[in-house]
């Protein structure tokens, strides 16, 4: 029920306009209204914290992203796909004498050295499922083992963090559909991309169409009507932003498949009120022909590395208020399979980068790779529950106060946090 009350008290500019049209004078609480609106206006200009979530959908092989090159079991069980050790041709990039970064993630190495990039190993869900659909669901609902949860943990964060001024861009997902993680009561925008987002029609028709569709989708809390209204509001603002003429700063560039991060950077710099961005990056389900430094997985990591490095360069000073989190529903088997790939496993590795990050370190307790140290004898064991990592980030960075609502089945014990962010 507390979700209800926080929604009701969070006065948006839209409700203000609507009540305004009905006649503010008729409302007893008018002075309070003015004060709240004024506060909301101020917030839009204030420094806003942004969390960018990159979902490596498909189950990324954490053991190839952050390579435990010092473990004998690593090379033994992966004769065809293990990365060469640091110092060897196209070998892993040494991080701390124990772990190395995949060579295709080299663009991120300077960030690790500068303390802006932290890595978390052996992180994942306590639930044993190896089904993509179940594991993705659990990672997005934040309730492992519970199928009945309809909304996502990122959406619940929106209700549990201080509400900003009215903006349709508070939470934006790039992709065909709104991901489960952002589905729920709080409004979140979904767009394939920013540059083509907008209502299109013959020039002189466009204003009329905007007005007419706004009237058709007015009133009512039905999700369809809500989505229509939000789309039209955002469409107006995107037109002003003129995303097609955007030029990244500091000579930054993005690979074609990483353009969504460039659009996130643009939204951050345009100060439209973005707090949560969600990007889906697929292609990690490497059952066959995974490759080592080159090959299928290497190509995907190359895109990821160059995209994130481009994003960092493009944002420059803005990065002090931004945290990027990569996540995946599970890792992959320790041993390679008969097809030169790896199968669905358990724990994986995640990256956290940005200004507030205490980086330059690989976090998490390392469980080891020997069969008796593994989960069910085959997978890297989970030693960090993903909710402890995510919980720390949203508490410290987004100001979420009620973590029990974000991760309801979890103790949310601050003592279990990794200390990965300052503050």
């Amino acid at each position, binding site marked *: 029920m507390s979700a209800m009350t926080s929604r009701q008290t969070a006065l948006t500019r839209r409700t203000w306009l609507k009540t305004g049209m009905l006649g503010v004078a008729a409302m007893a609480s008018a002075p309070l209204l003015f004060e709240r609106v004024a506060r909301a206006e101020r917030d839009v200009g204030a420094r806003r914290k942004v969390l960018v979530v990159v979902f490596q959908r498909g189950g990324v092989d954490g053991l190839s992203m952050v390579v435990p090159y010092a473990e004998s079991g690593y090379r033994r069980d992966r004769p065809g796909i293990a990365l060469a050790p640091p110092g060897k041709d196209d070998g892993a990039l040494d991080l701390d004498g124990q772990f190395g970064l995949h060579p295709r993630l080299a663009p991120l190495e300077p960030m690790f050295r500068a303390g802006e990039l932290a890595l978390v190993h052996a992180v994942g869900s306590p639930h044993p499922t190896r089904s*993509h*659909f179940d594991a993705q669901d659990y990672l997005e609902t934040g309730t492992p083992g519970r199928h009945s949860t*309809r909304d996502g943990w990122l959406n619940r964060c929106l209700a549990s963090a201080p509400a900003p001024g009215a903006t*349709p861009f508070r939470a934006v*997902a790039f992709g*065909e*559909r*709104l991901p489960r993680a952002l*589905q729920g009561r709080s409004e*979140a*925008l*979904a*767009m*394939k991309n920013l540059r083509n*987002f*907008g*209502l*299109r*029609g*013959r020039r002189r*028709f466009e204003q*009329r*169409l905007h*007005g*007419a*569709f706004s*009237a*058709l*989708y*007015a*009133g009512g809390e*039905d*999700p*369809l*009507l809500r*989505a*229509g209204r*939000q*789309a*039209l509001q*955002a*469409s107006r603002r995107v037109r002003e932003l003129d995303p097609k003429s955007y030029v990244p700063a500091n000579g930054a560039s993005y690979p074609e498949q990483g353009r969504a991060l460039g659009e996130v950077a643009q939204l951050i710099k345009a100060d439209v009120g973005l707090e949560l961005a969600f990007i889906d990056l*697929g292609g990690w389900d490497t059952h*066959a022909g995974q490759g080592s430094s080159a090959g299928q997985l290497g190509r995907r990591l190359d895109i990821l590395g160059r995209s994130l490095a481009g994003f960092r360069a493009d944002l420059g000073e803005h990065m002090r208020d931004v945290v990027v989190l990569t996540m995946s529903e599970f890792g992959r088997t320790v041993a390679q*399979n*008969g*097809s030169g790939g790896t199968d669905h496993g358990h724990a994986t590795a995640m990256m956290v980068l940005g200004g507030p990050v205490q980086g330059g370190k690989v976090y998490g307790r390392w469980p080891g790779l020997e069969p008796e140290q593994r989960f069910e004898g085959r997978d890297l064991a989970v030693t960090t529950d993903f909710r402890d990592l995510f919980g720390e980030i949203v508490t410290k960075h987004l100001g979420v106060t009620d973590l029990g609502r974000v991760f309801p089945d979890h103790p949310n014990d601050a003592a279990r946090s990794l200390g990965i962010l300052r503050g």
Partner: protein
Amino acid sequence: VRRPAEGELGFVFRERQHDRGEKRVLGEHFAAGGGEEEGRRLLSLLARHPATARHLARKLCQRFVADTPPPGCVTSVEKAYKDSGGEIRELVRAVVRSPEFWDPRHRGNKLKSPLEFLASAARALGAVPDGELGLARSSAGLGQPLLLQAVPTGYPEAAEDWVNSGAVLARMNFAVALATGNVPGLPVNLERTLGTDSAIEPLVTVANGRLLGGRASARTLETLRSELAAIDDPEERRQLAVALALGGPDFQRQ
């Protein structure tokens, strides 16, 4: 299973990609060194599993009755699966014979998928696709590239997976493009569909009847009237009527 993009459908055995190791599936043992017969045995094992009956029953009821499938309907379809050995005719028969199927609460309640939206828009206008791939691209643009769903569970059925700001905007844009004859592969003739009378009241009535099944909401009718009144040109008026009717909320429901 062959990928549709490869041009042909059906089961295919690829010797080189087969994992010849020992396997255990649902408690059944598959000895090392097996080949194609393993695949057939696996499919048969899955088809006879009770969870399959339940799962497919749920999916059918979700498709034809409601996003949250009523338990009574699911149980009858599940029984039909078991009784008939998975005969699809019997399953559909069980769906339409269930009282839940006819319950007024479940009528006009499901949201159209992008493909359903596109096909019903074309039908409503009596537009005949030219058979080329342009229209398939429109379906992709609306969020449903044909036969290309990345995950093996297929396209989702529930409204929450299709309703979002970007998707609704794409439907509005499609409606505008279709009304103005700008959808590749789908030429329209609005005069033929809506008639030559472009006076407001007759036009609103025929748009409601032809495009919205006579079920337009009061808000839709009111918006159509006031917006159409601002346009003088008869063809532009028809275009706006079609764009608003097909892009508005009423048309998004089955």
